[in-house]
């Protein structure tokens, strides 16, 4: 099923439940983001990009996989925009594509072999956040 970029943006708004129009562009999400430095696009930018219907690049470039799901942006946003929910929506859309997974079971044995202390919680979280 092929979607236009605008349609995808609409879908992102829908499954994130986030009202990106509420954003007043204060940048507090980006000011608070602990993964800011690892991202090509930053929280305030992807809220605006979704609002403008420009999401193709966000779906491809991997910025959103850098989100730690720490919800600091959700907590501190003065407008109730919930940027982390926008990220989650973009992520699941990217991961639901064929070959969209960022984490496969085959990686696990090597990870554990390298570091036996990795808690189950980390593996389960990674499976849930990185693949569909």
């Amino acid at each position, binding site marked *: 099923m092929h979607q236009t970029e605008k349609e995808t943006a609409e879908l992102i708004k829908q499954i994130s439940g986030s009202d990106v129009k509420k954003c007043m*562009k204060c940048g507090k999400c980006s*000011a608070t983001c602990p993964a800011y430095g690892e991202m090509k696009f930053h929280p305030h930018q992807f809220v605006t990009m979704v609002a403008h219907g420009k999401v193709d690049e966000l779906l491809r470039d991997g910025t959103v996989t850098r989100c730690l799901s720490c919800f600091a942006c959700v907590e501190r946003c003065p407008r109730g925009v919930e940027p982390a929910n926008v990220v989650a929506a973009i992520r699941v859309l990217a991961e639901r594509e064929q070959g969209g997974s960022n984490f496969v079971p085959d990686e696990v044995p090597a990870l554990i072999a390298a570091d036996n202390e990795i808690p189950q919680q980390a593996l389960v979280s990674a499976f849930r956040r990185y693949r569909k």
Partner: protein
Amino acid sequence: MHKIGVFVCWCGSNIAATVDIDRVVAEAKVQPGVVFAKDYQYMCSEAGQNIIKDAIKEYGLTGIVVCSCSPRMHEATFRKAASQAGLNPFMVEIANIREHCSWIHKDKEEGTEKACVLMRAAVAKVTLNTPLKAGESKVVKRALVIGGGIAGIQTALDIADAGFPVDIVEKNATIGGRMAQLDKTFPTLDCSSCILTPKMVEAKSNENIRLITYAEVEEVSGFVGSFKAKIRKKARYVKEDVCTGCGVCMSKCPSKKGLNEFNMGLNNRPAIYIPFAQAIPNVAVIDSTQCIKLNTGKCGLCEKVCTAKAIDYTQQDEFIEEEYGAIVMATGFRPIDASKFDEYSYSTCKDVVTSLELERIMNAAGPTGGVLLRPSDGKHPHSIVFIQCVGSRDVSGRGKPYCSKICCMYTAKHAMLIRDKYPDVEVHVFYIDVRTPGKNFDEFYRRAAEQYDVDYIKGQVGKVWEEDGHLVVRGVDLIANEQIILNTDMVVLATAIEPDPTARKVANMLTASIDTNDFITEAHPKLRPVESPTAGIFLSGVCQGPKDIPETVSQAGAAASKVIGLLCKDKLTTNPCVAHSDELLCNGCSCCEKVCPYGAISYDTHLINDHGVKETRRVALVNEALCQGCGACTVVCPSGAMDLKGFSNKQIMAEVEAICL
């Protein structure tokens, strides 16, 4: 025989674009009793009013219906016109075909249909109207101003200058309010105290002004022209007329742990204190929660050292009762609690302060004697970060949805003053938008950036924390598109302002309406900005909405002029649309008395001649001066004895029938 005239207004295109005027006129002409119908582009204009006047005279109209805007807008206009043409003004009915019809309909067919219905209902009602005569009520020539900040002081001074006595009731021990706490004022940087304290002195010395400080209004009854207020004057434990303000008691008081409210709690004050050196009245007050004598019975040191013999530990709260013709609300504001935004570490780091706290630190009479020092260690800071919009424009539930209006300017002021006095201090300002409408305001802000090298960064701060004896600020620079981490010595939060918490209580007492943010609502946001919808209640200062000092002073003057206009009148005409009880139908059940919000209904037991049967009965009696015509009593009356003049049950039913036709 009724002779009704119907006048249909276009209101330019406001009505005419959505309502087929010709059809309304045509339908009006065939209504029973209607002898004349006409339309005009602007019925409220002089030419429009002349059409009405001429028709009344020419056709001997007994009642008129004007199909136009809301009666709130122009009912008074059309009643006056009718009256000038010799028709009783209460023989005028308004069919609201603008707010209730054209403005909310898109479809012209539907709009026209509804306009016809509204016109029919108004015609049906007006045929049952009876001429009414407005009564008169007295005007007590004294005003009450609640709040003694710059708004209240200015309003009181202006009213007093016009020759009317005014009482200022101030809840704190001194007048002066927030302005007294400020150091300099924007955009001229003149000293706040230097311009305020003379006004405070003037308020004290003006013979028409009575200052009632350390007092709160507890009860208000009555109505415009004739309010009654009960004022609680809290016990000061110091005789106000005896204390000389020498301050010896302050220096001897052993209890020194009370937080100094005037300095925003940045330092302590004794249990007996004068709020600040220029306080009016310059009289001490005892904080009963801190006083050792009042709490344990021991001590009494202040009494011993007071040569004027002003201390009185047995003092009780006193009550003052007074009548007023008008009441002005000037209850002011406070900054919101910054600990709601603890990502900025206000609760845990002493060097994170609010702007009002900085104002005290910068003030020569403040806790540091006006020297800029960090609260944590008293050292000179080398860098300061200002964060704007802390809690303003915030719909998350933590802050306020509105712009607090004054923060951009006071932050620019602080930044500039610091850079001017301490050129070694780096100043950064994080802003979302810089909003500086106002005379010389933007120029002022640009001066801070351009001449004083204040570093304005577009973006917000997400987190402030303390580390190794300094503060770390993580923010974003949206123009550079980068997250920045700054080490700094102090952080200043431009916290949102909110109405003083007493505003809600006072507004309830005065039945003045209040919005969701606890700002008092104006009678009309543009055309009646200093009046409350409740007659006789006026608004001054921030209680109506965020504003700076120049705006507050202008509004204070405007409120005063409205009060003076009212107090100049010898009599007020009262609304004749009041309730009355048919004593033949009344069974004295008290239902109406219970629902009356104005206490206008009482009972009388007297001899009644009921169709030849004479008996003594208890019946309801309406005080027409108190009744506001709300109609609650007519709805609850089980026997149908209560009715409202001008809105009788018969008239309402006639309207309903006309609508259902």
